[in-house]
């Protein structure tokens, strides 16, 4: 029972983690809570459905297609709505992000209709039994894909030049640009990576729950955002840890009979963690300059 819940929790949590990575990387560099990120995830899921149901494409190719489309959308959103506001007050890009989020939500509602859309079954429902634990093929695919993507991201950030530039920019934006780093390129790249991960998360959630909806980005985005803050916003391993932690907590909460409070579990945990560790589990303390 416990191990079964743990596997279910990790599956859910790894999708949260994929979305949370986008929040955390963007916040790390430009200190912006990108509220439109949940909508990117939703669009990713829709592109996945269209690719699989209409064009009858293989699911893995559909995943790549969703990621490609979302990279384009994510980078253009940054160019249009955030870039002109780089030097203004903190709240202006936030409001702009909310505007983008409303725009994308309504756009999808107009295009796809306000009702939920079924995700075609692309993976046969084979079950694997390991001891007392049952893992479905979908769960296995999600776990493996999410794992590969997270390891890939770590490698990029650690060893590839643009990844190092990302770390430099998140350490000190101004100094990085003085040292010859093209900060605009770094920010575009960050949005591209974050959006592609969110799109992958969207397609996986569609596969897992078999249903997608134009407003699905709102709650998932908020929870993923919680995961990012919980782990320490700006920290990539923190986002992964936070996502898994939230997924497990939510599944456990539902299993022990708090199903009605499902959406509150994440937020209660968030507030508790913030009260005791104000910058999250793996976050660095805030520097206060006098």
């Amino acid at each position, binding site marked *: 029972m416990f191990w079964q819940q743990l596997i279910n929790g990790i599956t859910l949590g790894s999708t949260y983690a994929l979305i949370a990575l986008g929040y955390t990387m963007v916040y790390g560099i430009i*200190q912006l*809570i990108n*509220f439109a990120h949940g909508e990117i995830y939703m669009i990713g899921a829709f592109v996945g459905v269209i690719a699989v149901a209409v064009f009858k494409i293989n699911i893995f190719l559909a995943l790549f297609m969703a990621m490609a489309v979302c990279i384009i959308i994510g980078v253009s959103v940054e160019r*249009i*709505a955030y870039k*002109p*506001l780089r030097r*203004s*007050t*903190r*709240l*202006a*890009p*936030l*409001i*702009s992000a*909310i*505007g*983008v*989020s*409303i*725009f*994308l*939500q*309504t*756009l999808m*509602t*107009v295009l796809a209709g306000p009702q939920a859309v079924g995700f075609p079954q692309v993976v046969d429902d084979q079950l694997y039994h390991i001891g007392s634990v049952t893992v479905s093929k979908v769960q296995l695919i999600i776990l493996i894909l999410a794992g590969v993507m997270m390891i890939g991201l770590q490698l990029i950030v650690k060893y590839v030049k643009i990844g190092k530039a990302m770390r430099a920019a998140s350490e000190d934006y101004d100094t990085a640009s003085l040292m010859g780093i093209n900060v605009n390129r770094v920010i575009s790249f960050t949005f591209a990576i974050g959006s592609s991960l969110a799109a992958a998360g969207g397609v996986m959630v569609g596969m897992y729950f078999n249903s997608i909806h134009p407003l699905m980005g*709102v709650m998932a985005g*908020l929870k993923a*955002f*919680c995961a990012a*803050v919980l782990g320490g*916003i700006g920290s990539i391993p923190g986002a992964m840890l936070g996502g898994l932690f939230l997924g497990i907590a939510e599944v456990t909460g539902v299993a022990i009979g708090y199903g*009605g*409070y499902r*959406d*509150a579990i*994440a*937020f*209660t945990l*968030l*507030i508790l963690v*913030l*009260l005791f560790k*104000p*910058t999250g589990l793996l976050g660095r303390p*805030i520097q*206060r300059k*006098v």
Partner: protein
Amino acid sequence: MDSLIANLISPYYIKIFTLVGIYIIIALGLNFITGVTGQLSFGHAAFVSIGAYTAAILTTRLQLPFLASLLLGGLLAALVGILLGFPILRLTGDYLGIATLGFCEIVIVVFQNTEITGGTIGLSGIAKNTSLTLVFILVVITIWSMYRLQNSRFGRALLAIREDEIAAHVMGINTTAYKIQAFGIGTFFAGIGGGLYAHMIQYLNPTDFGFSRSFDYLTFVVLGGLGSIPGTVLGTTILTLAPEFLRFVDEYRMMIYGALMVTMMIFRPKGLLGGVDLAKAIHALKQKNKKNTLSGDA
């Protein structure tokens, strides 16, 4: 009074104008927290919902008079705000915003799982007590008290906290106490607005008070200009009327609304009346006139 107005304008406009008034009261409360004191709050809708449910339950279940339950709703919202403020206002900047956002979502879920609030079905059968005249009077009172508060010793201390919390603390301002008091005042007005809203719409549902509603209020304040009372009033009026004016584009309405928010931010990132102080502007104008008359005499 209202029957007189009803002869002049259609009920649809009365409803819209009442809503604008209610939102102005709520947004001024948020302006006091975020604009004047500089504490980011994404959870204002939670306090509106507390005020709305309290007032509605008191009038429907206990048959309390409307104005008394309105006041009690405001006071309860303020009490919750103060109790929440003690632990949560230690957080700064975005983290405070995130924690209040979490609180907002928790309040919805609690209302959805409580019997007295009608759960997910919502609370109906609330008497229609809110009138345009009453809302107008309350808006005037709110604006007046906001001016008094902002230009008092207390208000100037809050401005000092907004500009530099550490410096304010060193200058002998008890920042924690001031921030909590400001939060209490802001949430009080949210509660009052909530009670008015409940008795105008006559139906309450927890999902009406989600975080997206909190963002609506924040948008009113930021678009008008943080910390500016006329700015908040203007921002609220424009943004409440905008979706109504956009009805002719039907399903693209909210798309245009979203795009409008982005465009307005790009062209006026400080808000429409950001940094504009009406009292100062009038004073400057008077000075200028005086100068002109003087130079005219000479």
